[in-house]
């Protein structure tokens, strides 16, 4: 009986392993196919439209080595992190206050909801008139795109803290600060992290748009420069870095969420 069971279990594990291996093979094959198509299309079309894949790889290596890529990446990263930091530092307290004081929520939620649904990139020309062309308007546009998911998620997190959690604390004479620190904070961390995860993608869009339309710096500026000079091999390099940045940061936030708040998994996009 036990023997046959273990045999069955072993067989099942083996089957699972083969499926996994086959899935990986299909994925690899699919990626290789695209690279081949890219390579062939690049050879057949004029260079000003598309370069073969290997030239992009070579260009990536060259730009990494001669340092052309380093300064724009650092410049983009600092704008992005500044914007995300401001969004978290403003958005979390705002969401907390709105969740805690219903009158404040009434006063502010029309604006928060409205701006969340509005394509705020439309404000970039105005921001650039007010704040100039360099780092300030870029950080501002990142904040305008990234802050609303954080506010709304924090607010939703506070809203989930019900009376069954709040009343025992206040009946034991917990101060407002103690309630915030020991009851509300643990409950909202997963929501805040989910909000930050949404903000990363939106923030990168803001970053790129900012770099396109104010002073052309960073990865977005590099991209424009290569595209307008028809240097199609180099053009894809900043795009790759941006994709890696977006993907890497999203994975990083997800991992952080797992570490900081493993007790609850909340995946929601609220409002948008």
């Amino acid at each position, binding site marked *: 009986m036990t023997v046959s069971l273990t045999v069955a279990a072993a067989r099942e594990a083996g089957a699972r392993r083969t499926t996994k291996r086959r*899935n990986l093979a299909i994925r690899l094959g699919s990626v290789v196919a695209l690279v081949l198509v890219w390579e062939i299309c690049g050879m057949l079309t004029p260079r000003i439209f598309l370069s073969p894949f290997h030239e992009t790889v070579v260009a990536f290596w060259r730009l990494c080595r001669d340092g052309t890529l380093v300064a724009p990446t650092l410049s983009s990263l600092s704008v992005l992190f500044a914007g995300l930091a401001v969004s978290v530092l403003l958005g979390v307290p705002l969401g907390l206050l709105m969740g805690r004081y219903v009158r404040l929520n009434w006063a502010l939620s029309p604006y928060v909801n409205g701006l969340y649904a509005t*394509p705020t990139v*439309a404000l970039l020309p105005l921001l650039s008139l*007010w704040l100039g062309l360099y780092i300030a308007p870029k950080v501002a546009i990142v904040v305008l795109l990234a802050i609303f998911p954080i506010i709304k998620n924090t607010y939703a997190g506070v809203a989930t803290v019900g009376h069954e959690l709040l009343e025992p604390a206040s009946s034991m004479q917990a101060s407002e600060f103690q309630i915030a620190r020991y009851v509300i904070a643990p409950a909202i961390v997963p929501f805040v992290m989910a909000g930050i995860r949404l903000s990363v993608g939106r923030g990168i869009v803001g970053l790129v748009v900012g770099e396109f339309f104010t002073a052309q710096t960073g990865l977005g500026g590099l991209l424009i420069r290569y595209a307008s000079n028809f240097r199609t091999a180099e053009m894809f390099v900043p*795009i790759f870095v941006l994709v890696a940045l977006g993907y890497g940061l999203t994975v990083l936030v997800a991992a952080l969420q797992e570490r900081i708040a493993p007790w609850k998994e909340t995946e929601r996009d609220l409002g948008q």
Partner: protein
Amino acid sequence: MTAPDDAALLAVRARVRRSKIDRFVIVAMTLAGFLSFWEISGHLTNPMFFAPVSEVLIAFWQQIIDPSHTLLSGLVETLAVLVPGFLIASILGLVLGVLMGRSNLALQILDPYVTIFYNTPRVALIPVLLLWLGVGDTLKIVIVVLAAVFPVSVNVTAGIRDISAQFTEPARSMNATEGQLLWKVILPATLPYIMAGLKLGLGRALTTVIVAEFFVSLSGLGGILHAASSTYQMAKMFAPAIILAAMGITIDGLLTYLERRVLERYRA
């Protein structure tokens, strides 16, 4: 017995009504405060950089009654890109999502690309597509499709994968065909996910349309906005921005309403 109940009920009703009045007063006061701040700061600052709200409204009205209908044609131009792009993206996203949700082969083949595109800042593709497609509506529609298709497909795939076997097994055991399974069981059960995907996709589509209009051929509402701001016509600049905001809020509200209706039916 009934009398105290009625009294309690009345008290609750009165409290609800009072809180509604409170809310109305607070919203009205904040709005008044916001508008007067805008008006006053508009008068105090350099007119090259800002305009008071009264001038903005006058400019808005003038642009509406303007015989050349620049604003109206801008709106039409923007919608002519947004509507077809979003429709194509919705259908394509649904098909892609169903394929990836139902077939492991399709999932394994397409997932690397969906992951990459989902994480690509879609506006970064505008310069590339500009090279390939030139300046025109094709470029804008393609970029809108690229922006909106993946949120839809990712949500649909997640929804289908989330429907557990307890939905599909009974239908299967009653010999439902794959088509019946899809139309009668899987799609109704994934509707909430589909709605969430459409909402997300719409937000991305709107942002992308504007950036595309800033970037190529200064047309549409984004183009009008860009042109007005680069000639320092502050009051004029706000009209397209207000229309865009109204558009985003209206469509988002509509989708939220639909989503709630769908969820209600789904729960019933």
